[in-house]
């Protein structure tokens, strides 16, 4: 860090002094960083990929499902360390002791390319993906922490690291440091996200040591098929705004809960306790019993959506992935790693083009945010930009009253006694309508949330 002051002395000639070893430095070898690195290395750029962990993926945590349409295009996907393909998606509402669920098993998902949806474990996957960048020509350095950016006047011209003589200069820096973006924030390239827009997530990877085949039996799986179960309601995360999940890996399952930090703070609801309660729900416990914890992990998720995306292009630097807040959570779709890859790809292309043209101004790099806006990444975030606020306003209804009402209504609808079904149906309907505020309330709610699925 000590070099920063001296190095910001402006040189009048204004051709910044680069080390000339690298065209670009990528901060962070997660999915966004490696996607950028492989894209640029393939275009012939000298790429330095810096990772603070002992290996790529060592500091990375996610729920469990990776969507791979872009990765498939970027690298030799056949060699990717995948756990299982997603053969079933299940959306489940949990009240205190009820479950109401919708399960989807389209036949098509069992056939290659499996809707490009796979469970992976990041330790293995990120290391493999970074290796693809290395094989394309990038230089990977691990156990090296970027502590700040080097400026020459307004221009970002390199990075400071914690290694001896750790200043490295290059014309471009890609900031792919994740949601805990200390470098970007420290350099005033983005604001710290408010806690209303950040979720805390905890996860356990569990194994079943007693016998083989437990995962296949419990989740009705054959071969490489797997499941992605999403849960919401008070049975999943108590009084918080968020949800729980179970994803099947090859020999383990990933079980976790994610909810707003604001709720963790104000409701004094600890992440560990929340995870424990989710795992002991009557509908969840049979799936996770007799398991042994292989790994416990945690992370924060930037969920500010479209409005929270910072300026993506700075003089000599771009921001990608979680650091750019590119995460989608609309209750049905939980995506982030695919958006990280997409953003890294577009940023990498823009920098490669700028390098080929010998230009480094923000106009050339402007291709990155322009392309990203045309891509599914920003399109999807904008499509659901209204949701966060709406769900927050309706949280008691959506997370508590409705899951209970649906469970009570189904109990009533299918009740076996000596009353005619007409009275059961009427009671069931009344239960749901009472929760929704009558037909008017139901119509308003349907109108408000129609865009989630239509």
């Amino acid at each position: 860090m000590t070099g920063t002051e001296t190095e910001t002395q402006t040189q009048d000639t204004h051709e910044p002094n680069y080390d000339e070893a690298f065209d670009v430095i990528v901060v962070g070898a997660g999915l966004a960083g490696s996607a950028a690195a492989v894209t640029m290395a393939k275009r012939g750029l000298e790429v330095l990929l810096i990772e603070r962990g002992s290996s790529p993926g060592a500091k990375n945590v996610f729920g469990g499902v990776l969507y791979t349409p872009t990765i498939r295009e970027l690298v030799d996907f056949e060699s990717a360390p995948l756990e299982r393909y997603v053969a079933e998606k299940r959306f489940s509402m949990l009240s205190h002791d009820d479950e109401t669920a919708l399960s989807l098993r389209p036949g098509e998902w069992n056939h290659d390319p499996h809707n490009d949806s796979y469970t992976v474990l990041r330790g293995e996957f990120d290391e493999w993906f970074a290796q693809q960048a290395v094989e394309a020509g990038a230089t990977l350095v691990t156990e090296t922490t970027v502590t700040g950016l080097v400026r020459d006047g307004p221009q970002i011209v390199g990075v400071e690291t914690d290694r001896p003589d750790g200043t490295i200069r290059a014309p471009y820096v890609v900031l792919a440091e994740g949601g805990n973006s200390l470098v970007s924030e420290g350099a005033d390239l983005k604001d710290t996200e408010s806690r209303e827009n950040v979720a805390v997530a905890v996860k356990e990877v569990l194994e079943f040591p007693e016998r083989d085949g437990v995962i296949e039996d419990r989740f009705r799986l054959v071969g490489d098929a797997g499941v992605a179960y999403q849960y919401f309601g008070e049975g999943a995360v108590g009084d918080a705004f968020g949800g729980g999940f179970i994803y099947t890996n090859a020999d383990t399952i990933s079980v976790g809960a994610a909810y707003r930090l604001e709720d963790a703070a104000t409701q004094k609801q600890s992440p560990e306790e929340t995870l424990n309660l989710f795992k002991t729900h009557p509908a969840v416990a049979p799936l996770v019993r007799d398991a042994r914890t292989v790994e416990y992990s945690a992370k924060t998720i930037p969920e500010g959506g479209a409005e929270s995306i910072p300026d993506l292009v700075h003089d000599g630097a771009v921001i990608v992935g979680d650091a750019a807040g590119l995460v989608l959570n609309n209750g049905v779709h939980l995506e982030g790693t695919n958006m990280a890859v997409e953003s890294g790809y577009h940023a990498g292309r823009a920098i490669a083009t700028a390098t080929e043209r010998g230009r480094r101004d923000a106009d050339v790099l402007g291709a990155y945010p322009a392309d990203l806006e045309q891509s599914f990444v920003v399109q999807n975030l904008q499509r659901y930009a209204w949701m966060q606020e709406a769900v927050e306003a309706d949280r008691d209804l959506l997370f508590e009253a409705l899951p209970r009402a649906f469970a009570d209504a189904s109990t009533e609808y299918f009740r076996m006694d000596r009353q005619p079904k007409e009275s059961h149906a009427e009671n069931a309907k009344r239960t749901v309508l009472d929760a929704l505020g009558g037909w008017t309330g139901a119509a308003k709610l349907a109108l408000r949330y129609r865009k989630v699925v239509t």
Partner: protein
Amino acid sequence: MSVQPDIPTVTNDSMEDRLYTVKYDDPGESHLDVKVSDVCASSCDTNDCASVCPANVWRETEDGVPQIAYENCLECSSCRFACPYDNVVWEYPETGAGVTFKHG
């Protein structure tokens, strides 16, 4: 509705056992701190850092300044975002130290 009579027992590991599953390389000094102790002692009575922490790093104390068990840290950064006084010092542990997730 009544609770199911036979919910299988799920044995959750203790925090200690959970943290034991994670590889940790002690950097020797804390990557976490509070910026101004007096803010914790005088202004803060909610201890949000302790409430949100998934790893029992932040602990309430008598004098109001949290004790920091940094060697428990999973590097999720919840404390940094949660502190309403922006009073958390959070630095990346250097040269590969800190937590290593094998699976993630």
